[in-house]
């Protein structure tokens, strides 16, 4: 194997895929990147057996071949080389020789045959949508995913594809984020998958805000996203996601509207003195006024009053303030609306100008 590549191209490709390489590996090949040089193209593959990235570059190859080399070391070498430099990569006696200018490196390799590949995926359905749409739907929901919950199906993002619509739902049982987007896809029946947490985070990292189309392929056990020159594949969580429709309240007696930024800043202010572990905050709703109260184990107290639009009954309800701030950070709207029933029922947080997003937050007993 022998080829020459622009340092910036190689670095860019490695940075796109490095997220799949876990820092600690039980299987040596998994800390390596698979380099495949064909006659007129180069592909780099990284995987942790749950997700896989493959990048593809069209270029002239002097001598085809395939090999795996330590991913992080190769990335660090590329990073440290001067911008616009040329990198020559050859294989010599099982060592990968990296040469650029007057710097020479030799890296230990493992044969390409040692590198695991994900199972073939059978495409059940596929559709295209703008990159920015997919990124947006993830950004607006992924924060509510559970982390290492025993209910393993919550440790991921539920994607639901229906006719002309893509929905994303994430929940950790305490709060739920829902977002739907219109798409061009024509699917006969609704298809639901759960993308695991790591896949969601890596996919969001990969996606930009361009209008370029990405192709999404849903298999039985995999989800694949094809961008311009990079292919992302993730295994799916085999489980039943809870019925989100059941927990999104459809009505409520008490409706409060407030400026999103103002409410958020008030919550942040009050939260300074909330319990660092439980983050409880009390909302007291009165006529056109919300009072935010927090206190901590040192008996320190915060009291923040805020003028809002509210005409309902007196209501006191407690929340984890972080959940409220997360939901207020997720959407960039002027106005937010909170719909409540009583102090033991969930709160629905919405944005009148973005009806596609819904956030549900369960209260705390304070």
């Amino acid at each position: 194997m022998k080829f020459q590549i622009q340092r910036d191209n190689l670095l860019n490709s490695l940075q796109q895929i490095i997220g799949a390489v876990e820092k600690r590996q039980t299987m040596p090949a998994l800390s390596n990147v698979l380099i495949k040089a064909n006659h007129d193209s180069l592909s780099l593959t990284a995987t942790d057996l749950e997700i896989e990235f493959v990048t593809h570059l069209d270029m002239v190859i002097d001598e085809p071949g395939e090999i795996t080399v330590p991913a992080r070391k190769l990335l660090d070498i590329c990073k440290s080389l001067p911008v616009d430099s040329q990198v020559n990569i050859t294989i010599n006696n099982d060592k990968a020789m990296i040469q650029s200018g007057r710097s020479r490196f030799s890296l230990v390799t493992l044969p390409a045959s040692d590198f695991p590949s994900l199972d073939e995926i059978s495409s059940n359905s596929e559709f295209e949508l703008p990159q920015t749409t997919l990124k947006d739907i993830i950004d607006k929901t992924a924060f509510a995913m559970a982390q290492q919950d025993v209910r393993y199906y919550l440790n991921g993002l539920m994607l639901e594809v229906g006719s002309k619509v893509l929905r994303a739902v994430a929940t950790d049982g305490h709060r739920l984020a829902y977002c739907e987007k219109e798409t061009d896809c024509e699917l006969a029946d609704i298809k639901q998958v759960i993308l695991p947490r790591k896949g969601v985070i890596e996919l969001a990292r990969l996606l930009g805000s361009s209008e370029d189309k990405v192709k999404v392929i849903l298999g039985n056990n995999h989800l694949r996203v094809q961008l311009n020159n990079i292919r992302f594949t993730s295994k799916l969580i085999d489980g039943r996601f809870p019925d989100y429709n059941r927990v999104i309240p459809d009505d409520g007696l008490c409706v409060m509207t407030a400026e999103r930024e103002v409410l958020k800043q008030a919550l942040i202010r009050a939260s300074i003195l909330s319990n660092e572990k439980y983050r409880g905050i009390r909302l007291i709703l009165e006529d056109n006024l919300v009072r935010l109260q927090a206190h901590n184990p040192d008996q320190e107290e915060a009291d923040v009053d805020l003028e809002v639009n509210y005409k309902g009954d007196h209501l006191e309800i407690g929340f984890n303030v972080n959940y409220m701030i997360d939901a207020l950070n997720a959407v960039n709207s002027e106005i937010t609306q909170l719909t409540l029933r009583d102090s033991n029922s969930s709160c629905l947080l919405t944005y009148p100008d973005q009806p596609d997003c819904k956030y549900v937050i369960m209260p705390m007993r304070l």
Partner: protein
Amino acid sequence: MNTTPTHWPRAIALVDMNAFFASVEQRDFPSLLGQPVAVTNGLRGSCVITSSYEARARGVHTGMHLNEARHLCPNIVQRPARPEVYAAISTRIMQALHDVCPDMEVFSVDEAFIDITHCQQLYGSPTEAARLLKQAVYRASGLLCSLGLSGDRTTAKYAAKLNKPDGFTVIPPWEARERLRHVPVTELCGIGEKIGQFLANHGVRYCGDMEKLPISVLARRFGNPGRRIWYMCQGEDPEPLHFDVAAPKSIGHGKVMPPNTRSRQVILTYLQHMCSKVGARLRRHDFEARTFWFGLRSERDWLGEKIRLSSFSSDHRHIYQHCQQKLNHIWKGEGIWQIQITALDPRPAAMQMDMFASEPEQLARDKQLHLTMDKINLRYGEFTLSPARLLGRSDMPNVIAPTWKPDGYQHI
């Protein structure tokens, strides 16, 4: 002891049990009274965990190899440690101290600081309050203790050391500086060899030398702890007592059963009794737990198992139900001597509600039921309202310490 009935700005007492484990052995086995005793970890243990005053007089000290101790003191009596007994007595002593004054910091199994600043008036004077503490220890355990009383914790600890084994030393705060003046700095609790060397290099060997050294020298070298040392040596240790006990690592109850109990019904009664106690105690502290240890002690050893509930709970009925299901697994009909139920992962009860919780109405009803039951039992006595099975419960008083548990972290 000259006591001044005036108000002290701060009054801190240190209660120190003398040669605690050895004293317990001598208390329980009168033949050991007046004898040099070395407590070791079982009879195979070769390290002296603690020794009686008679042994100490011959040069035996904690950490010494038993052979060495025998060399110094050929007639030394080796006693295997009985950690559960010490834990039980320690708990009783701490509770008795707490009853006199709740502002306390348990410093170790046999030492506690008590801040009597706020109750000195109630008892007349700090000295009077301290005397009550000492009496409380004796009444709870039949053991003597050394008590030091001063205006700060370091001087109080120093004072407690002065008169052993039955000391009662009062250093009024305004005398502390003078009393410490000629005391080597390394005598104070918290000044070890390293700090002592540093101070010696700066010409400070005795506490009285400290006033010549600028506080900044210590601050530069040791930061805030350095500043504290500067004050400590002058009888003004600013360190407050730490009243907040860390959240419990476990909450459990156990009971000795009629020896060689083989009746399933009796075991179930004891089981329900312990589950009810654990549940009530979890609820009293507003805790809940998911993992429990259920143990039965047979003649030889503990038969037990960890039991995991499907969710965090403080409901004694859930705990009982799960334990009962495991009973046949744990117990094959052996004679049973003792029972223990311990919540292993207590945490403050969920304030955060879960949207997928099963049957929230049922949970709310149960909560109300427990609240009512606990209130009644608090008002009219434990088990006024209880499962019917508990009508046949043991009327034996609790002899095992609430903090003690067979597989616990707190084995001493």
